[in-house]
């Protein structure tokens, strides 16, 4: 049972603060590190993996610092986001070489097992240069798992995977988490995190915006006010009708249509068309204007 501890960890590059005063514990099971691009997820992962020194604060794995401590890799596996691997090796050669670098007693058997787990047995004799992006991801996971680490860190592991590969990887990570390993993966896609992990750490602009059980955070996300841009055959009449509905928070009449703020995303989406039909108004455009992750996370920070 391994725990990663971050205490007031910050990391800056010159005047740019990449990670700002993060404190968190990551224990056994699968934890998702969620946030938009540029939020500092990779920086956090690199610091945990011992590939970046915190500018301030402490970062330990069961009490041992990871920075400048190669011994930590006996217990930790890293799957970096970058696609670069030794493309001139076959998948099997790459994983076996990693097993040898870990000085495992039986590197061939360890490689065979790791390749089997990631379902890469059929392609193991092909050079990595011929692999698809998804296959490269899986062979990187196989290499990271070859020494059966207690901690597995994955930076955007689902990038480039097709839906079947993605599902398989999710099952694999779930299984590893259920075995008591500490799995931390980063993603900017809400649905990936939702399907895989009960615990999430949400990062925005270098700060920890939310931390804990996914369902509670998801409720926060879905109950936030949503803004829609609506264009109709009669904007003013629809605005009057919307004002009387309980799900309407505010309506603004603009030269380009209506800006509607609703406190109930589901009810608004279900009833706007019915309302328009009852009022004999033709809807020509209905666009959610703040569905980006940044706006979702921004809401979490301010609430």
């Amino acid at each position, binding site marked *: 049972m391994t725990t990663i501890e971050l205490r007031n960890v910050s*990391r800056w*590059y010159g005047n*740019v603060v*990449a*990670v700002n005063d993060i404190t968190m514990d990551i224990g056994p099971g699968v934890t998702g590190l969620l946030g938009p*691009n*540029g*939020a*500092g*997820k*990779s*920086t*956090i*992962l*690199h610091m945990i*993996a011992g*590939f*970046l*020194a915190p500018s301030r604060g402490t970062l330990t794995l069961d009490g041992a610092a990871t920075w*400048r401590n*190669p*011994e930590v*890799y*006996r217990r*930790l*596996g*890293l799957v*970096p*986001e*970058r696609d*670069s*691997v*030794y493309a*001139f*090796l076959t998948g099997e050669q*790459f994983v076996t*070489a*990693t097993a*040898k*670098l*870990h*000085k495992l007693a039986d590197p061939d058997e360890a490689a065979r097992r790791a390749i089997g787990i990631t379902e890469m047995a059929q392609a193991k004799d092909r050079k990595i240069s011929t692999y698809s992006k998804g296959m490269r991801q899986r062979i*990187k996971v196989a*290499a*990271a798992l070859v020494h059966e680490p207690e901690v597995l860190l994955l930076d955007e592991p689902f990038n480039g995977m097709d839906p079947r590969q993605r599902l398989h990887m999710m099952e694999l990570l779930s299984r590893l988490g259920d075995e008591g390993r500490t799995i931390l993966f980063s993603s900017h896609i809400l649905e990936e995190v939702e399907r895989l992990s009960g615990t999430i750490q949400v990062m925005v602009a*270098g700060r920890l915006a939310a931390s804990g059980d996914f369902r509670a955070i998801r409720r926060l996300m879905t109950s936030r006010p949503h803004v829609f841009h609506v264009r109709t055959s009669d904007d003013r009449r629809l605005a009057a009708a919307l004002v009387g509905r309980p799900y309407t928070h505010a309506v603004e009449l603009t030269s380009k249509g209506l800006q509607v703020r609703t406190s109930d995303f589901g009810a608004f989406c279900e009833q706007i068309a019915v309302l328009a039909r009852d009022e004999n108004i033709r809807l020509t455009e209905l666009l959610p204007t703040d569905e980006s992750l940044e706006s979702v996370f921004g809401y979490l920070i301010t609430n």
Partner: protein
Amino acid sequence: MLNPTVAGITLRATLGRRRAILFAIPAVILIALTLILRASHPDSVSWPDNVLGDFGFSVLLPLTALIIGTGVLGAEIDDGSVVHLLATPVRRADVIATKFAVAVGLTALFAAVPELIAGLLAPHSGKLAFALFVGALVGSVVYCAVFLLASVLTTRAIAFGLLYVAIWEGLLSNLVGGVRILSIAHYSLGVANAIYPDKNLQAGLTLTTSVVLAVIITAGGLYLATRRLQTFALTGDAI
């Protein structure tokens, strides 16, 4: 301690790249030049030390060492694949020692050995060939240590190396005598000249000075490269 797995991957990576052709070209030119001169001036005794000493130590050796020395680790750092090597408990000192050993071996193969072959092909130059071979071996060791260090310090290691070879060694060390104490080519010439004294080699340093400086710079280069690799950092998505 050398790591055979790291050595195997490094060898395959270095020899598999297209630029492997690059470090064979100077060697081919040297041997071809020697053959041409031997055919056109079979009895001359003046050209072998000029060609083998000047071209061999000023062009063949430093350029070959530059391409190999900066490539054995620098290429992996540039493309990011080095993280797969460093995310293992292999000691950073072992990584540097192994990369260095591979670089020296390949440089010796593609620069010192061709120097020996060319020397043996040249007329009346058996002893000179051996002296140049030993001098080139010393140069291979020191150049590789310096260029390996450059590759972990900067992504512009090749530019740094070219400036060092062309400006510092090619120009300044011939104009200002004091500059020679930091010229690897002159360490090589100093050793070669001690084995086979020849004023045409234009050695500016004694054997003792050459060997002492070569040892200090090699040891210092490898120590600093190891220290640098121990603090190797991956940049995040926030910068």
